[in-house]
C-alpha cells in the first residue's frame, strides 16, 4: 500500500495536471475564436468589443473547407482573402438601422470591424476558391495547391 503522503502527492499532481490540461484546451479554444471588434460608427460604441467567431476547418483529400459563424452581416461587407496557407476573413458587422430607436436594455453582441487570420493545414490556391454566406455562416472551399512542394535545402558543413 502506498504511503498516505505519497498517495496525496500523486492525487495533487493528477489534479494539477488536469487543471493545466483543461486550461490549455480552454485557452486554445477561446483565444483563437474570440475576436476584437473595432467600432466603426458612433452606434457601434454601445456594443461589446469582443465577440466570438466560431470556426470549423476541415481537410478533405483535395480541398480545405472553412465555416465561420458571423451572423447578421451584409454579404458586401465581408472580405475573403487567400494568402498561401492562411485564410484572412475581415469585414464590418453593422448595427441595424433601427438600433437608435428606443432604448437599449441589454447588449451582448459585438459590432464593428474585425479580422480573423486562420492558419490552414497546407497551401491553397485562391483560384477556384469559393465563398458563400448563408444563414449567418460563411463557408469557404479552397482547392489545395499542389504546385507548391517544399524544397529540401541541403545543409552543408561550414
Amino acid at each position, binding site marked *: 500500500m502506498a504511503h498516505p503522503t505519497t498517495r496525496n502527492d500523486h492525487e495533487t499532481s493528477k489534479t494539477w495536471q488536469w487543471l493545466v490540461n483543461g486550461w490549455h484546451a480552454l485557452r486554445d479554444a477561446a483565444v483563437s475564436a474570440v475576436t476584437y471588434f473595432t467600432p466603426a460608427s458612433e452606434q457601434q460604441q454601445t456594443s461589446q468589443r469582443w465577440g466570438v467567431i466560431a470556426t470549423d*476547418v476541415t481537410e478533405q483529400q483535395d480541398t480545405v473547407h472553412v*465555416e465561420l459563424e458571423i451572423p447578421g452581416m451584409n454579404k458586401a461587407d465581408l472580405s475573403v482573402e487567400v494568402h498561401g496557407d492562411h485564410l484572412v476573413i475581415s469585414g464590418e458587422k453593422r448595427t441595424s438601422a433601427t438600433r437608435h430607436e428606443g432604448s*437599449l*436594455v441589454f447588449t*451582448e453582441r459585438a459590432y464593428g470591424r474585425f479580422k480573423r487570420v486562420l492558419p490552414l493545414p497546407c497551401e491553397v490556391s485562391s483560384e477556384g476558391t469559393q465563398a458563400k454566406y448563408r444563414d449567418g455562416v460563411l463557408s469557404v472551399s479552397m482547392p489545395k495547391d499542389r504546385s507548391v512542394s517544399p524544397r529540401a535545402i541541403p545543409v552543408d558543413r561550414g
Partner: protein
Amino acid sequence: MSTIDRPSGLLDDFYRPFGSLFREGFPSRLVSDSEAWLPAVDIKRNDGAYSIEMEVPGFNPEEIDVEAHDGVLTIQGERHSESDKSEGDFIRRERRYGKFVRRFSLPAGASSDAINAQVKEGVLHISVPSSNGNDPKKIAVE
C-alpha cells in the same frame, strides 16, 4: 416604499437570466458538443414594446423554439453536427452543437399573444408588442 439598488431598472423588469453568464457562459464549453450554451442577445425597448435579437448562425427555423408562458419567454434551440461535413478531418473545431436555452421574464405590459419571431441571416428577431392600456396610470387618491 424602499427599492433595492440594481444595475438598471429596465434590466430588472425584463431581463432575468436563470443563472448568470459567469456560471453558465464560461468559454470552457466553447468546443463542447453536448452542453448548453448561451447565444448572444441584444434587447431593445421602444414605447413599451421589446425587440430581442439573438445570434443563431446556421440554425434552421425548425430548430428554434420560442414560447411565452406565465410571463416567461423561453427561447431554445437544438442542432446536430451535419454528418456530410464529418467527411474529412477536423483541423479546428469551435462551432457548437447540441442544445441552448435562454429565458427572459416578460414585462407586465407585454402582449404574449402577439409575439412574432423570424430568423434572418443567422439572427433571430423576436418582437414583443405591448398590449394597449397597460401603461402605468396614476390613480387619484380620494
